[in-house]
């Protein structure tokens, strides 16, 4: 099991309603269903990924995080998971606020552009960093909105989100719980994973007994 999956499995409450945004072929969703008895849903851009999820018996909607989260009603989930994808979205701020509209908590992970390898690569070579966490050249990378741990902290503060938990992730190593506001972590954490919630409670929608069409809402 991938280290980030293990950490997510640890964070998710058993029996929770979970949406995995960018769920790929559904590996994580299947784990959540099997080991956490989660009610899993997925959103995935690639047709092959959606087909693979269907074959696993998972309920997955084709779509992308930028555009299609609006297909889900407010507070439909306990957790919305966005793994290593935020930096590839067109509007990360909107995506993050949508995640915390449709779910009470968001689990978000991303490569930290403040990591020392990235800084060293730019400083020493004077070229866009190519590291093990960010292997593609600038002209082909899907990562169009990279941020550092400090940048992400600023965005969560701006959106009035609380970081309930944060872990540094390195491939092949156990997740390490960190305080994301410590400056040293912005150098040390290659990838960061956050468990976020709203500081101010969301306005409750109408009682869910009478579902409203989102077009009419």
């Amino acid at each position: 099991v991938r280290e980030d999956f293990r950490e997510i499995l640890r964070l998710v409450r058993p029996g929770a309603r979970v949406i995995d945004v960018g769920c790929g072929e559904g590996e994580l969703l299947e784990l959540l269903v099997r080991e956490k008895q989660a009610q899993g849903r997925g959103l995935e851009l690639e047709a092959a990924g959606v087909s693979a999820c269907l074959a696993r018996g998972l309920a997955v909607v084709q779509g992308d995080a930028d555009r299609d989260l609006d297909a889900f009603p407010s507070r439909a989930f306990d957790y919305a998971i966005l793994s290593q994808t935020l930096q590839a979205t067109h509007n990360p701020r909107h995506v993050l606020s949508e995640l915390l509209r449709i779910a009470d908590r968001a689990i978000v992970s991303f490569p930290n552009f403040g990591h020392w390898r990235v800084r060293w690569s730019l400083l020493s070579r004077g070229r866009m960093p190519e590291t093990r966490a960010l292997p593609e050249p600038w002209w082909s990378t899907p990562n169009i909105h990279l941020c550092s741990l400090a940048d992400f902290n600023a965005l969560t503060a701006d959106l009035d989100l609380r970081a309930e938990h944060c872990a540094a992730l390195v491939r092949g190593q156990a997740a390490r719980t960190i305080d994301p506001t410590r400056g040293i972590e912005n150098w040390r954490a290659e990838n960061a994973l956050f468990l976020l919630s709203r500081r101010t409670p969301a306005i409750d929608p109408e009682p869910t007994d009478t579902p409203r069409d989102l077009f009419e809402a």
Partner: protein
Amino acid sequence: MDGSADIMAQDSGVWAFGPDKPLRLDSGAKLDNLEIAWRSFGTLNADRSNAVLICHALTLDQHVAGIHPVSGKEGWWTRLVGPGRPLDPADWFILCSNVIGGCNGSSGPGSVDPATGQPYGLTFPVITIGDMVRAQAMLVEAFGIKKLAAVVGGSMGGMQVLQWAADYPQRLEAAVCVASAARHSAQNIAFHEVGRQAVMADPDWRGGAYASAGVRPEKGLAVARMAAHITYLSEAALQRKFGRELQNDGLSFGFDADFQVESYLRHQGGSFVNRFDANSYLYITRAMDYFDLAAPHGGVLAQAFRGARDVKFCVLSFTSDWLYPTLESRHIVRALNAAGAQASFLEIESDKGHDAFLLDEPVMDGALRGFLDSVRSRW
């Protein structure tokens, strides 16, 4: 079951409901002596939990697989139904029935009105998608099936699938809706009206009473089919197939079919009249035009699905389908999400237009196989 020489167990028949079981129609009328023509593949298991109902599109029929008894051609969805296919008769009991209003054995405008001894013609009551589904529910009950493992359909068949989910959610495990919509758009209605007007403009239509006059409005029905056929294709598919290719060398400077696309449409229209009834075409297109699943629920589609939270849905659309475009499917998926149902959705890349759901689309086959296998694994 007739286990014939064919490798599939299959059976067919016409279920005649007695006068004690009239079909109540949305219009307020009722239909006595209801008859439903059906065809089945595979065998019902002991607890009758392996049944799938397939709902057909506008001009199709119950002959979803196997050989069509009249045309001698293969069934219309052998990609989906057959040995080794996603719906394998070795595992599934596959049932498909001709819709009411149709012309392949079920009660329709061409049936004889027991009150007069004459064909109904336009005295046949106007029917809806809801009525078609109510009749199917009677058939399913007659087979002793309490809960269908799945209801599957494309185009108008997909409308019936959605209607099933709205009206009988407790009698469904899963629902597959392909290339369809939860309501007919103004453009959909407009194209149907062109078709109906073409039929009714044919002097041989005789106000719908052509059967007793011994004629058929073949010209009008052929034109209706030609117009409709264009809506089933895409611009790219027409271009790829025909471009501006000519039938013969050079232009005729007349009004014969110079272009191959003209000849193709004439052929489509001409062969259609041999297998379809003009009045059935009027009734079924009308039923589709009347279809608006949200309307009885205050215009809120999610309300139509509020009983279907435990139904697993698979919604598929095609990129080049401009008759029932992807947006219509996304609208369905949103409503299913709002109702808390388990919805899956996939838009399949294809340049074949609306007809793609009947054609060689391996991504569709794969998605349906995955979804239906997961349904089957729960028996």
